[in-house]
């Protein structure tokens, strides 16, 4: 089984419900999302299209949709699935909340955790 290395990505009070936060975890660019239902998600931090920082995007916590500022690619942040264009996907990291710490797990699989989708 692939080993997962856990790191503290942020403190709980840095990421309020309904907010997003860009962090670096073990040299990987990660986007943390705190959904209104309480779940905390971690996805690849750069758009699969042209590597633009997704945290710069337009985020709507009511619909859980994130719009990349570059070319308006739209993602459902409950799953990381592309809404438009459909078919693309954000890599999702495992998350653990340990006391006041938000921890993100980076699989030690030698693979890139930045999924790309080129046109």
């Amino acid at each position, binding site marked *: 089984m692939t080993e997962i290395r856990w790191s503290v990505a942020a403190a709980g009070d840095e990421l309020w419900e309904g907010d997003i936060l860009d962090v670096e975890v073990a040299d990987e660019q990660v986007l943390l999302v705190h959904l209104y239902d309480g779940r905390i998600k971690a996805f690849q931090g*750069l758009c699969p299209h042209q590597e633009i920082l997704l945290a710069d995007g337009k985020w709507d916590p009511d619909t859980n949709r994130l719009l990349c500022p570059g070319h308006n690619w739209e993602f459902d942040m409950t799953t990381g699935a592309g809404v438009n264009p459909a078919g693309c996907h954000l890599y999702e990291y495992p998350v653990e909340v340990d006391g006041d710490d938000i921890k993100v797990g980076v699989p030690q699989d030698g693979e890139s955790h930045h999924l790309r989708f080129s046109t």
Partner: protein
Amino acid sequence: MTTVSGAGTPTDPVGGDRRGVPAHRVTVVGGAAGGEATFEVAEGERIHAAARRAGVWLPFECGWGSCGTCKATLVEGQVVSLFPQAPAIDARDERRRRVLLCQSTTTADLVVKTTRVESRPPPERPVRDLRARLAETEPLAPGISRFRFRLTDDSGSPVAADYRPGQYAVLELAPGLRRCLSMAGPPGEDQVEFIAKCYPGGEGSQRLFALHRGDQIPVELPYGDMWLRPAEEAPGRPTVLVAGGTGISAILALVRQVAAEASSRPVDVVYGAATLTDLVCWEELTRLVSPLGNARVHGAVLDCGPGWSGTVGLVTDALDPVLARAPSPEVYLAGPPPMVRAVQEQLDRHAVGRDRVHVDSFG
């Protein structure tokens, strides 16, 4: 001769003499992707351009503050914005210390963080600072002209323009007065053409239309993300080129490319303007397209005279039947922002994926 170049002034250091202007050290750390670089920025010089001039290539796309690709996180120091109303900056950026490197300068040393630092230009945007000397102005309609500029480097030697049809240049029409114009002609020559409209009260276009033959201005090119994706990537996929108003400048460059390649790709060109007079280059467009076996031109005007066989209405009215016939097209779209937004909404309604839509909204 009216020279509108402000070379050497603090607000216009493009290719100018920066001796005597205080310079500051900027260190860029390349985030998770790694890389680090240090370069100097003269006061008034745009940080992104200073990096490029020092051979340090940081992420960018539009060159004037609308896309946000060049945003960086300020780690140490402060920047001075040269375009505080830039569309890509909002209050949240201020809280996150995100700044637009393409529209910021500094009065002190800085440390910033970007997603990457490269030592080479991206192949699609090998931006250079050049000088453009107006060679000819060709009136196309009242208030619409085609401008031809000769390109040279700082020493006055001719330079062949290196860009992809569909891209644009940033022209410095006066110190601090920068405007984006799409090249209408083919690359590889030491001249560029732009089709532009003169807007009453529009400072940039007024300045452009006031230029005389022989006047010289600094330009940077190429910028933008719209160019023809190779047909072999998706054989048979329809190509739809949509122009509104002087968005025809960029679309004409793409049509010329398709015509030069004598491409067999299925192409529909949809071009709209307010009046038939404003539908400039219509004959040129139909002449380019008619020898191609698989291409058609569709026009739309709101106000036409007798004999017009095209659509009477908006560009979206002419585009609807094209989209109904051309499933999953690759769309190239250039025009004024309201027209671009209307077409983007129309493309969403027709379920055209945003990965298939390439936009230039400065037309």
